[in-house]
């Protein structure tokens, strides 16, 4: 097991910048998720760690050893590819045994390890089959088995669950997490699904357009997103954003956007006022609905109600802006109805409109 350290790593394909100035330190035995939208450079990053691509700039370390110039075979990395990449001409057994054979492991030892891994992943009865005769979920487990059989120092997983159906995906999520903790192998897990990243990873590196946006524990990303991108990418339904400005009246600070007006906590209001143009962000569960007319809050009209069973997503319109509110299903409202909504003051975020950074105060 090793620590993995990327220092100022960039990768260019011709003039396309796939990864730019990436700095990530993965601790020994840690489960790190690389999270980002399609094309943000996740696979490229993994392939650089595996040694398939050489970084255009920057260094990669396993523990204190610089592996930047080492070929893949000298890195002892196990990888599950997005496409699984099982060898179609070999049986499942030979697929799993392949890395061991290349290491010149004795035959009896190979057999023991293959069967051990097969038992762990419950694919014992598939060992004689060819990959073409397996379902997606089975292929995924075989690919995982092949990566694990060689007892890698680092395990790289490239969207291993994305080809599975929803139910199997939720099941495998927990299985993978448990397996990783049992084996204690340093793991880097690529996904574009924020739920997967949030539920499985110790820490998440959020990437966008080749750049690292934030690298932190899931709850930190959720509660203190570094910028608009992270705030919008993490959480479902996504955070509500409203563009406007902060004004001061009689020592109190208000966020205003047309007829939309929200009182802000004093500290946040003060730094917001210095900025002028800001974006207000608030998560759907940090908004509350009142049906009664009364004091406080903002007037809104119900737009659409999306029931989820336990909760409902209630879309309301405030002066032309649609906000999503996560409310208990018991709250019964009708489209067109006028209600008042309240913001939990401590849960309001302000972002700099130009840089996208979240405004923080100490």
């Amino acid at each position, binding site marked *: 097991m090793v620590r993995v350290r990327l220092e100022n790593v960039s990768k260019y394909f011709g003039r396309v910048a796939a990864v730019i100035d990436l700095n990530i330190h993965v601790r020994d035995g840690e489960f790190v998720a690389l999270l980002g939208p399609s094309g943000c450079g996740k696979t490229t990053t993994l392939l650089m760690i595996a040694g398939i691509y050489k970084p255009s700039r920057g260094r990669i370390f396993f523990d204190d050893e610089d592996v930047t110039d080492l070929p893949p075979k000298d890195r002892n990395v196990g990888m599950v*590819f997005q496409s699984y990449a099982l060898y179609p*001409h070999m049986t499942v057994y030979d697929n799993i045994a392949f890395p061991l054979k290349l290491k010149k492991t004795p035959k009896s030892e190979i057999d023991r390890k293959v069967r051990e891994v097969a038992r762990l992943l419950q694919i014992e009865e598939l060992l004689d089959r060819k*990959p073409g005769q397996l379902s997606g979920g089975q292929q995924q487990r075989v690919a995982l088995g092949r990566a694990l059989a060689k007892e890698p120092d680092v395990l790289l997983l490239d969207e291993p669950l994305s080809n599975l159906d929803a139910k199997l995906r939720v099941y495998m999520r927990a299985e993978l997490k448990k397996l990783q903790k049992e084996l204690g192998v340093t793991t880097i897990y690529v996904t574009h699904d924020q739920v997967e990243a949030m539920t499985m990873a110790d820490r998440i590196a959020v990437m966008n357009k080749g750049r690292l946006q934030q690298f932190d524990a899931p709850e930190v990303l959720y509660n203190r997103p570094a910028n608009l991108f992270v705030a919008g990418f993490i959480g479902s339904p996504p955070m509500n954003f409203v563009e406007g400005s902060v004004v001061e009246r009689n020592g109190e600070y208000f966020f205003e956007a047309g007829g939309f007006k929200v009182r802000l906590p004093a500290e946040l209001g003060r730094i917001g006022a210095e900025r002028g143009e800001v974006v207000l962000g608030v998560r759907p569960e940090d908004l509350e609905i009142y049906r009664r007319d009364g004091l406080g809050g903002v007037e809104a009209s119900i737009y659409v109600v999306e029931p989820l069973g336990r909760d409902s997503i209630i879309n309301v319109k405030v002066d032309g802006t649609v906000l999503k509110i996560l409310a208990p299903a018991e709250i019964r409202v009708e489209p067109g109805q006028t209600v008042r909504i309240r913001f939990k003051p401590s849960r309001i975020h302000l972002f700099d409109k130009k840089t996208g950074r979240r405004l923080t105060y100490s």
Partner: protein
Amino acid sequence: MRLRVGRGILPWLFLTPLLVMILIAWVGPLILTVYLGFTDLSYRNFLAFIENFFTSKVHYTISNFQRILGLKDPKIAEVIRTTVIYVSGTLAINAFFSLLLSIAIAYFLRNEIASMILRVTWLLPRVTPGVIYALMWVWFVDPRYGMMNTLLSAVGVPKSWLPQSWILYTPYSRILMIMINGYVGASFGMIIYTAAIKSIPPDLINAALVDGASDFQVARRIIVPLLKWPMLFVTAWQTLSLLASYEYILMVWGGGRATSDAYGVASESGVLVWSLYSYGKAFAEKLYGYASALSMILVVIGLALIILYFKVFGFRRMMEPSKVEV
């Protein structure tokens, strides 16, 4: 009222022109060859034969086959030996060496320009007119002006090993025969193989590299096994076309069309292959019945070899469904 053409008829409508062509250019001659093989048609009885075409007055016989298969024709043993050497030797280049070249070009050579130069070098003979290609070889190996011996001595081949004439003396003539046909034939396999290698998903090769394979092991354990189908195809195709091809041998070694110098120096030089022998029997010696019998046997041998290949390559196993298209 509009004419309605049913789904049953439409395909035939489209296929008809091609079917007519196949009928005229392929099925017709095939039937004719089989027919003539069982007759004694030659320049001696040509006119009488034409009058009695397909009637019972024609003299039917199996003596052609008896002569050939019973090795009563003194040339047959020699022709068989030469053909085996020719086909297997050239096949080694066209089907096997071209595989190595393709792996080098499509996998090992990361340098696009070097790979392009290699590709073009091997495609050149294919785009050169056959007669010119043959002439170039004749000049190339010319004992006085040719480059062949000069080049070979330059790379350190002892003078005593080099022949007076590459064309006249075995085994040099046979090596030359294989080189001429191999160089022009290898490009076929290379085109098929490189396309197949490029269509292997890169993830598969990356996975093997991550699993600890060296480049050589990737080639041997991943690429070659995935090329089974193209290899079978190229081998089968080349076997058939080599069995039937004699044009370069005719152009380099062959003579005119008078009976006396029909095969030129091919026989003396050890390059008289079956198809050339059959050609000479038909168009120089004008023994049409005998030549047809020779051709027929060649076709049967070709078909037998194809069946053998399918057995060797494990046809059943290759037909197993696989989700990964290669």
